[in-house]
């Protein structure tokens, strides 16, 4: 996504600059651990404050922790730090804890001493409702807070809507896992804001559902991805938006392929193919169908579909699409034991991923090249490829890779 600078943000009528100063004083003066709650009602304004704090406190390290069902207790942020980082001063922003309900809040009471034992400034971002929840559900933790900073803004409704619309319309562009988490926070926040509107625009909600679903999937949070994408399909059907429905079905198929297996994915992709008439989406559907079916022994049909997808991406001039398809073609060729052809496809894919600057794409291709070289017992070359892939995975922040 384009840098989330907020130069377009209107000047808030009740400026929060005083609370920002207070937060900075707390961070700069505290030598021991403390925590504070930061209240927001607009995700864009929240991101602005975060960027300002990061700039101002630099070179103090700043870490983010975001609630997810798999990572639901705030004290778990310590697991991602080195022993040295645990001992050094740092700022840690906590997001979306209120999505976790009572247990997540209550865990703060139980881990209060652990959280207090490091020289970290712990800033919990919540809405006004979250503040109430924190006070009621984690009274002991709440009682020891060092401050409640108010970053809510008040702008005229129309201006606020315009602002939300411009942010909701931003494309998803992910270079690292940290990017994905930041964008997920932003789009989830916008989704909440839209859902709370009395005349919520369904199409915008559906568009956001798609973005959030994609980001959840990228971050391996598949149950949540499915829930968003199913809502997107439902709204698209309700509004008669067939292309949006086809896109949602395709994205759901990508998630289901890993979550529940291939038959469900194939069924969804075939439904999507019937609905879509957009070349780019058709190419994406064919690519995914091709990637799914070769393991069912349909490698000829798979290669045909992938070549059709490649042709479409070339016609459109989509290099990233071409790179993804070439990687998939290489996988099918490797599966068919056509290793020379596979390496050729991977090389082409690698060039294109480099051109578009996709580190994750390059890392995945280098790993696949390493696999072929390892299969051929070319161990030195394989190690070199794996080593390059590892460096890139680390840059992206992909621990699984």
């Amino acid at each position: 996504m384009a840098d989330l600078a907020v130069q377009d943000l209107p000047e808030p009528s009740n400026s929060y600059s005083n609370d920002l100063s207070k937060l900075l004083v707390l961070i700069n003066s505290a030598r021991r651990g403390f925590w504070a709650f930061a209240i927001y009602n607009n995700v864009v304004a929240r991101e602005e404050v975060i960027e300002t704090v990061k700039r101002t406190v630099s070179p103090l390290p700043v870490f983010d922790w975001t609630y997810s069902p798999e990572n639901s207790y705030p004290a778990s942020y310590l697991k991602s730090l080195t022993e040295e980082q645990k001992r050094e001063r740092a700022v840690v922003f906590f997001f979306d804890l209120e999505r976790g309900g009572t247990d997540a809040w209550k865990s703060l009471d139980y881990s209060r001493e652990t959280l207090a034992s490091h020289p970290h400034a712990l800033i919990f971002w919540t809405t006004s409702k979250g503040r109430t929840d924190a006070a009621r559900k984690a009274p002991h933790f709440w009682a020891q807070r060092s401050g409640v900073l108010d970053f809510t803004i008040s702008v005229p409704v129309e201006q606020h809507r315009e602002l939300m619309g411009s942010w909701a319309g931003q494309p998803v562009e992910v270079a690292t896992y940290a990017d994905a988490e930041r964008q997920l926070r932003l789009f989830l926040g916008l989704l909440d804001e839209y859902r709370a509107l009395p005349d919520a625009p369904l199409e915008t909600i559906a568009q956001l559902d798609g973005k959030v679903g994609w980001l959840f999937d990228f971050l391996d949070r598949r149950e949540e991805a499915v829930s968003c994408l199913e809502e997107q399909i439902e709204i698209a059907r309700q509004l008669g938006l067939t292309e949006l429905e086809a896109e949602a079905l395709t994205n759901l198929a990508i998630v289901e392929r890993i979550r529940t297996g291939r038959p469900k994915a194939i069924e969804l992709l075939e439904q999507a193919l019937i609905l879509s008439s957009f070349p780019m989406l058709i190419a994406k559907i064919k690519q995914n169908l091709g990637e799914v079916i070769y393991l069912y022994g349909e490698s000829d049909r798979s290669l045909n579909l992938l070549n059709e997808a490649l042709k479409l991406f070339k016609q459109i001039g989509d290099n990233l699409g071409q790179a993804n398809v070439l990687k998939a073609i290489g996988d099918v060729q490797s599966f068919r034991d056509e290793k020379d052809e596979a390496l050729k496809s991977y090389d082409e894919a690698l060039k294109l991923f480099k051109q578009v600057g996709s580190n994750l794409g390059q890392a995945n291709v280098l790993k696949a090249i390493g696999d072929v070289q390892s299969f051929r017992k070319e161990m030195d070359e394989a190690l070199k490829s794996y080593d390059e892939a590892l460096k890139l995975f680390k840059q992206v922040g992909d621990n699984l890779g």
Partner: protein
Amino acid sequence: LSDQIKIKYGKPVLFVFEGLDKIDLGQGKDIFIDRSQTISGFRASAIFLMPIGLRYTPQFSTVTQYFKHYSLSNIKLHTSKNQPYPEGRAKLHELIAQRIDPFLFAGNALDEAITASGGLIRTLIALIRDAAVNAVVRESEKIESVDVRSAIASLRGDFIAMLETRHYPILKARYEDKNLDSDQETQELLESLALLEYDNDTFWCDVHPIVLPVVLERTK
């Protein structure tokens, strides 16, 4: 284990169980009422921190059979008959003087903070910390009334966010009668610190001074 320690070091053993004051009342009953015999069976001394709400449950007499209990009440600034209690105020002055140079307060700032704290040390420290941050932001060398008042307003906002409409008439009633009882709502209000507990000859309570103006306003 305690026997081994006693033999090895020749000294009595004291266990301190921290953090049990943070558990829910239901879990508190499980531990301190249903299992009071078990947990008081150590061949050593033990100090348990207990959820304060347990004291107002009908089964608390079970606890008193097995444990000697102490309550760390707040420092009163006035009596239950609304008579000033200067000893309490002096104690808080002394406590603050041990942590911060009194010359850093201008005018009545410290007295205002003490009055607003209701004798609750946690509130007093929070108010002074917030006021100090406000003073730094204003680039002032001293904490002034304006800083304390801003801190009070911020804390009042927290109470307003936490309290429900049904709580206000109860707070008004407790403000008038000062009586503590074991009903659920009173316990909630004690836990949220909107009600503060004091003792002299008997236990009594009062509304936290910071929330009192809102209570009076909303129960007119």
